[in-house]
């Protein structure tokens, strides 16, 4: 990704050699109105930053979007070693020594992730007032926390594969050929830490296919917030939701000969007493059972 330098405004002094064009300089102390008035390109960022500042009564809170985009996209400006701790951040902002704005445009995926982080940040801002949000590198702050092959819906497909029946002429029809997975669903779950007390939970699954069913790929997202109660105890709260992952069963084409002709039918129920058309009402079309999850946990160390 190329950082469009002419739209990057660097407001600092004493930061050393920089690869970006310095298009403005504000001497401290400065206000956000100063930024807005002098550097319209930074308007959105500044406004958001200001919002964050208002929310943070005790300290200025760095804009997570700002941290995300600039710390990852413009790493040469802000190497991780530079990323200020909360106290540093407050110091910088209060003294007006250094801050920066960057209009680097992340690729679509990263943009989505960044938006998710912003949304999450807004959602949890009321509870994260005292949290010290760190501008961190996305990849370095992201950890794989779970991986699994199969799911409850994979198990459902497996259960549908049991048994079979005979055709009118006595040939065996085995359901396992229709409900055996060609590729089993694989899920990976990650956490991206955005502060010592807040992380974004996210993950995805590959989906699964059999001849007569499909489990759609899914994307899972949410957050984990940790609240220390005392030195040895803490509450943690997490909430996630999943998009996609639906189980869809497909029908079969059955030939009943003179008595019923050719009809679409639920593969599993073709030989039951049920009207073939009615069996279609029993095709499985099911969301993941754990689509929305909320967890509250109290941990005590002893």
């Amino acid at each position, binding site marked *: 990704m190329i950082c469009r330098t002419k739209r990057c405004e660097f407001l600092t002094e004493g930061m050393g050699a920089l690869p970006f064009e310095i298009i403005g300089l504000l001497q401290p102390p400065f206000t956000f109105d100063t930024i807005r008035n002098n550097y319209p390109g930074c308007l959105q960022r500044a406004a958001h930053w200001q919002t964050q500042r208002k929310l943070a009564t005790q300290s200025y809170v760095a804009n997570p979007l700002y941290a995300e985009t600039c710390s990852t996209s413009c790493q040469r400006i802000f190497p991780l070693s530079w990323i200020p701790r909360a106290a540093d951040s407050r110091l910088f902002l209060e003294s007006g020594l250094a801050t920066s704005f960057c209009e680097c445009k992340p690729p679509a995926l990263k943009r989505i992730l960044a938006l998710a982080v912003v949304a999450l940040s807004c959602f949890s801002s009321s509870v994260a007032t005292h949290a010290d949000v760190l501008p961190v590198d996305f990849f370095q702050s992201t950890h794989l926390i779970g991986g699994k092959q199969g799911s409850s819906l994979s198990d459902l497909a497996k259960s549908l594969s049991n048994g079979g029946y005979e055709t*009118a002429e006595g040939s065996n029809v085995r359901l396992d050929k229709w409900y055996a997975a060609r590729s089993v669903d694989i899920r990976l779950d990650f956490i991206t830490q955005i502060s010592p007390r807040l992380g974004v939970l996210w993950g995805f699954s590959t989906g699964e296919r059999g001849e007569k069913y499909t489990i759609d790929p899914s994307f899972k997202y949410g957050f984990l917030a940790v609240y220390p109660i005392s030195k040895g105890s803490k509450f943690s709260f997490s909430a996630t939701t999943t998009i996609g992952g639906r189980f869809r069963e497909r029908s079969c*084409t059955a030939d*009943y000969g003179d008595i*019923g002709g050719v009809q679409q039918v639920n593969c599993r129920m073709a*030989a039951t007493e049920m*009207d073939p058309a009615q069996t279609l009402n029993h095709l499985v079309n099911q969301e993941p059972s754990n689509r929305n999850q909320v967890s509250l946990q109290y941990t005590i160390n002893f």
Partner: protein
Amino acid sequence: MKTVRSLIAASIVAATGSAFAQVEAVDMAAPLFNANWQSSDVKAAFNSGYTGQGTRITVVDEYRATAQQITGRMLAAGLQRQTHGYWTSEEANLTAPGATIVRQQFATGAPISLAPTGLNVINASYGMVAAYGLTNVRLGGTETSMVSYAKNGQAVVVKAAGNDAVNMLTRNVYGQNDYLSVNLKGAKSAIFVGALDKNGSATSKANIASYSNRAGTDAVVQKQFLMAGVAANQTGLAGTSFAAPIVSGYAAILGSKFKTAGATQITNQLLNTARTDTINGYNVAVHGRGEASLTRALAPVAIR
């Protein structure tokens, strides 16, 4: 011309152990039945709840209070003592509980009424017996309507094969013949049903019951001859009279699945899907098309 009037209902072979207690008549709407006499096909159908809805089974039989009372056990609740017609209609009901059961006294002369919609099945667990070799026999109004419906494909007519242990339409030991069967021969929606000694399976094959009439050598009869298991050791009731209501129930269940199918199509489906691998020493001249299989009759010919 000779008119054959009320003749002999299908004979009942008494079960061993006759110390049966008499119980009240059963509530037909609540079939807590002794399912051990039924095939696994029927149990599965019953459990699924799709058991003949939208069809009518008219059981033409003996219901008069003065008729012989027979003791048997089809329900888990205990023994019952009732006339032949109440037994056969109860058996049809237990096979296809969703079907409307209509009881009609045989040989009254009253034509059988058909339901205006849905499949009609007529069960005839009796015969119209007279001396063998008569020509120009005239049946009464009830049976005439039954034969007409079978020939026109208006109702599936299921006829008990008879308990004389002879080939169909041949002279029995009394020198008699069943003229209802004679008239139903070749009718496009008529089925003759003989009895097996149990419900057969590929691993536990059944034999023809000792009393049951056989399909015989007439190819026309062979093509419309089925068999069904009669578990007399469970019910205390034996005879092809109790084979026919099973097939009537099967027809009703098929009719509730294939709502647009006519009586002839239902009949052919039952005949074409009969199993021969569940019968010991299957022989078309004995067993006709084989043992009726509800499972196969419900199944598609092919599926993909």
